[in-house]
């Protein structure tokens, strides 16, 4: 096929778009870029980043004649990957319909498109990379914790960081852990689950940041030696049990790329497109550079102001310092390109987000050459069709001291009701409630959900971390517990159980018992199952075996937790609940968690206890269920995420700001914009890790924890505000006193340029003066 000229490509794009070329001048520049140098595309919210990049990929295939199988296109989530695939194929079909016959000879499905994790896993499998063949992936944080805990009860060989006697050393290593521990009462012994949580994060961050074990072990700092020991042990155990985790799979992939086979596979290098580059971690950035075969054909797209994933190891510097990193890698200086024409939001909203991000000293340190934002970044310019003289920016606040959540929530409910009844919105899903946490007991969210219920507004809050409290979820869990431990064994439980887990289980059991009173078939199943275990146990104990034996049912099949789940949902009332989407999603959450647990714990298969044991079912099953599985549950369970659609139609969607990334809504309520953010383990771990990175990956100007927290908070609310198309409604309270700290935390004060900050906005009148309407 002859290459298509750029003119012909543009002409086909134009035909596909009713005669208008759908590119603004900056977007068009990307199509003239010389791909021997990396492309550094910094795209503000609503500026058509996905639109530009998908057309650009097609241009590279048709005009520059890049073989699609030599293109790798990564993004941050499966959902985003699905969207990119849809857009790519849709645009491709449009080009064909526009008469670009040359397009018939290319096949966009040949592009490797997906999250970096999925690409790592697929390539390693295709290339039969020995260390990862048929490896078990701990693909979520829960599984990683289950894995760490699996080795924990084996107290002959626990991870050094989790040894009981080493808790003090862990305290020295992890300041945040110390902070958390010191906040407890005297004599408090940290539970394994909490230690595991910190340690899991520490290990993941170490791997993502390319921290070598040897330098740690050789360090003169005893704390770092201790970390090295722990990390080594974790690596060994992963290898021993043939497991890997989300971070480690990336390390495997990088090792593969640096191997002889890997270099052969890379050949002359891939053409790389990386979306959401602001949330890249150091090992990922190494992978991208390796995949280009040290050529410069790397296009990165992102917005540093929307970097949200520091807590998962992302370093916004990957994008902000991209030019320096490219040059350190021996590539030429990348071409910066700024997309700033916003087609999403009403001009008043664009104005607000510009003021919010572009003036405050947190984001613009005075007298410092340090980069907090991408250099040379222009303000966003409104080019949206959404216009009108109505107040597109509303403040949901009042002059009274303290928070009046129920009052604000009622106003929000009235407004939503008005918009829907008067057809200003067609569907409730055009409204989003965004908050830093969607747990109903935080951010005053309970006031909103209760106001919505009272007003008959349907809402959807899948990440409430409250799934474990749903009665049906608990009844089913109670049924499993009653089979595992019949009533007469109750007294043995508290001796080894973590008390809060046991208390939760006791309630679940009671809820199930109450249910059984009206559901005889379910009750009969539980009773006969317990009886079956009893009989099998009597026979087994008579054998005097030293080892527990698998519990099988009358069909000779081993009984597992997930098997019990499937049996139980066959009984009423669970069966009917499967037809109700809301409850079914909760039951599914339990099912998915159980199967995740079973992947680590011998498929969840139950065993009969040996003679002399106080329980009929093997004690390990009982302990693991109560102390590990239930422990994971009561930390809070979300409903499983839908990989296709982030928004549920027919409902006001309540979501975390993180979840809302990449989405847009006609109406957005942002709750508690004056949130006080604190340094967390994320910042502490980052501080420990930074100097341990290989030199070229270190951040030479790392700011203090407090400053980084403030940056994160700005970016968080920047993402939230910029989701709104027609109406942005900000909820926040006025500070009690005018001091610098309160100024930082005050959402209204934040939007003012530094010099104006002195003129503190302390009441609604002053807020009105800067053009904000009070709801």
């Amino acid at each position, binding site marked *: 096929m002859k290459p298509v000229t750029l003119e012909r490509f543009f002409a086909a794009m134009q035909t596909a778009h009713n005669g208008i070329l759908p590119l603004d001048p900056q977007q068009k520049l990307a199509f003239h870029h010389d791909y021997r140098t990396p492309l550094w595309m910094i795209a503000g919210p609503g500026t058509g980043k996905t639109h530009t990049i998908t057309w650009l990929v097609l241009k590279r295939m048709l005009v520059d004649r890049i073989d699609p199988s030599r293109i790798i296109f990564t993004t941050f989530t499966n959902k985003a990957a699905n969207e990119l*695939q849809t857009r790519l*194929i849709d645009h491709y*079909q449009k080009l064909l319909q526009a008469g670009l016959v040359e397009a018939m000879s290319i096949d966009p499905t040949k592009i490797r498109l997906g999250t970096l994790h999925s690409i790592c896993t697929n390539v390693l499998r295709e290339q*039969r990379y020995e260390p990862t063949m*048929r490896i078990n992936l701990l693909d979520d944080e829960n599984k990683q914790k289950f894995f760490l805990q699996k080795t924990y009860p084996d107290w002959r060989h626990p991870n050094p960081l989790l040894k009981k006697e080493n808790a003090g050393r862990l305290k020295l290593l992890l300041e945040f852990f110390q902070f958390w521990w010191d906040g407890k009462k005297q004599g408090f012994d940290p539970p394994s689950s909490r230690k595991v949580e910190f340690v899991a994060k520490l290990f993941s961050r170490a791997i993502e940041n390319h921290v070598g074990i040897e330098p740690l072990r050789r360090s003169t700092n005893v704390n770092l030696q201790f970390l090295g020991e722990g990390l080594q042990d974790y690596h060994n155990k992963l290898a021993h049990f043939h497991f890997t985790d989300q971070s480690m799979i990336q390390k495997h992939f990088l090792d593969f790329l640096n191997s002889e086979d890997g270099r052969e596979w890379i050949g002359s290098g891939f053409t790389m497109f990386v979306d959401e580059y602001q949330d890249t971690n150091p090992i990922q950035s190494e992978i991208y550079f390796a995949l280009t075969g040290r050529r410069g054909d790397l296009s990165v797209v992102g917005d540093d102001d929307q970097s949200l994933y520091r807590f998962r190891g992302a370093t916004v510097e990957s994008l902000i310092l991209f030019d320096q990193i490219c040059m350190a890698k021996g590539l030429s200086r990348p071409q910066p390109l700024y997309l700033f024409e916003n087609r999403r939001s009403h001009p008043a909203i664009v104005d607000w987000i510009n003021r919010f991000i572009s003036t405050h000293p947190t984001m613009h340190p005075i007298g410092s050459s340090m980069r907090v934002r991408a250099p040379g970044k222009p303000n966003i310019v409104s080019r949206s069709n959404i216009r*009108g003289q*109505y107040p597109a920016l509303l403040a949901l606040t009042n002059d009274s001291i303290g928070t009046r959540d129920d009052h604000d929530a009622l106003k929000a409910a009235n407004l939503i009701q008005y918009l829907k009844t008067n*057809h200003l919105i067609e569907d409730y899903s055009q409204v989003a409630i965004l908050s830093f946490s969607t747990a109903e007991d935080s951010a005053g969210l309970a006031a909103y959900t209760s106001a919505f219920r009272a007003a008959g507004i349907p809402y959807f809050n899948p990440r409430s971390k409250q799934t474990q409290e749903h009665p049906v979820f608990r009844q089913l869990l109670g049924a499993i517990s009653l*089979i595992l431990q019949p009533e007469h064994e109750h007294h043995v439980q508290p001796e080894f159980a973590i008390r809060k887990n046991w208390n939760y289980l006791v309630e679940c059991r009671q809820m199930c018992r109450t249910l059984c009173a009206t559901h005889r078939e379910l009750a009969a*199943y539980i009773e006969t199952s317990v009886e079956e275990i009893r009989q099998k146990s009597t026979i087994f104990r008579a054998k005097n075996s030293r080892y527990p034996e698998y519990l099988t049912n009358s069909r000779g099949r081993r009984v597992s937790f997930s098997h019990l789940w499937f049996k139980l949902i066959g009984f009423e009332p669970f069966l009917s609940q499967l037809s109700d989407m809301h409850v079914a999603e909760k039951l599914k959450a339990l099912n998915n968690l159980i199967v995740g647990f079973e992947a680590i714990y011998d498929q969840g298969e139950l065993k009969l206890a040996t003679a002399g044991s106080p329980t009929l079912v093997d004690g390990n099953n009982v302990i693991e269920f109560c102390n590990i599985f239930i422990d994971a549950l009561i930390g809070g369970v979300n409903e499983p995420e839908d990989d296709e659609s982030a928004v549920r139609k027919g409902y006001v969607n309540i979501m975390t700001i993180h979840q809302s990334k990449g989405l847009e809504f006609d109406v957005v309520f942002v709750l508690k914009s004056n949130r006080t953010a604190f340094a967390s383990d994320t910042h502490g771990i980052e501080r420990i890790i930074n100097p341990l990175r290989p030199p070229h990956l270190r951040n030479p100007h790392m700011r203090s924890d407090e400053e980084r927290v403030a940056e994160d908070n700005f970016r968080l609310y920047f993402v939230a505000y910029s989701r709104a198309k027609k109406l942005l409604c900000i909820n926040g309270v006025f500070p009690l006193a005018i001091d610098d700290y309160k100024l930082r935390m005050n959402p209204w004060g934040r939007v003012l340029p530094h010099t104006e900050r002195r003129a503190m906005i302390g009441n609604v009148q002053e807020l009105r003066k800067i053009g904000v309407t009070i709801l």
Partner: protein
Amino acid sequence: MSFERMFRDWPLTHLREVKMIRSYSVTTDILSYKRCRRQYGFFNVRGYRSSSATQRYFGTMVHDVLDQLYRMYKKTKRLPDGREVVDCVEKAHVRLIQSGVRAVYTVQQKEQIVTLIRRFLELAGQPFFANIRETEYTLERSMDGDGAPDFVLEGIVDVLAGAVSHALGLEMSRSTTGNDVEIWDYKSGEMPAADSQLMADYQYQMNVYAELYYQQTGIYPARCVLMFIGELNNDRLYNRCRADIRELRHILHVIHPSDEQIGRAMTDFRQTVACIEGEKQLPYATQWQAPNHDVDRDTCIACELRYHCPKFSDRDRHRREPL
């Protein structure tokens, strides 16, 4: 200010339907859905999971070992010897067990796999391996839904090969040439009856792969060959064939792509995609009902939904049995 006054100037826009182009695989989507839509809906769409849905030990081992042996062949350009086959089987076994696949009588199964693979190498190893172009070859193509939503069709063929049949001197209804391209698929069992559903599924799968290959390259493969390795377990037949694969009639089943068969398979594929997409639009409570057609009893017996499935006649008994 009243809301009426406040929002007088509100810009009205219409809610846009979000377009979604989904990928559909021949085996994990289409054949699963055709087997039982309820099972497909619960496990493949809604995302319920079952621990017992582990891969089959025997079939996976056969695939893994053949794959590894081919990789050794590619490096050394010689067929692996008996010792190497045993080592390879052992390694594959360890990996599978570590990955959580449960199996019983593994010693016997491993021995059986060693025998099958050795026999296969003896009968077809050199011409087969020498002609392999790609293993686990991914075929993918975006398709016009023809009124129904567009979709991406995907499939993975075990082996994309050159003229293996020609090299083996197989007699075919259509003559072979040295330039043929062939799709080969390993099946670890014995050949099913010609009129069985399983055989129909295999043929369907091969016809779709042939079309996919055509869509990608502009030519149809000369033939698709199903290789039933399990047939080599029969000592009597094996000894009688005197190392000539042509004498073992049931080890290979050849499908020559025809317009008619491919056309039928593709129409069916499109219709099935439309059914799946249509099912997703139904109200939640009515989605993924048990199918109206018969479902193979073995499929139901292995299905975790049978305890409440209206299609499974023994559901009450199975459900009430303890544990």
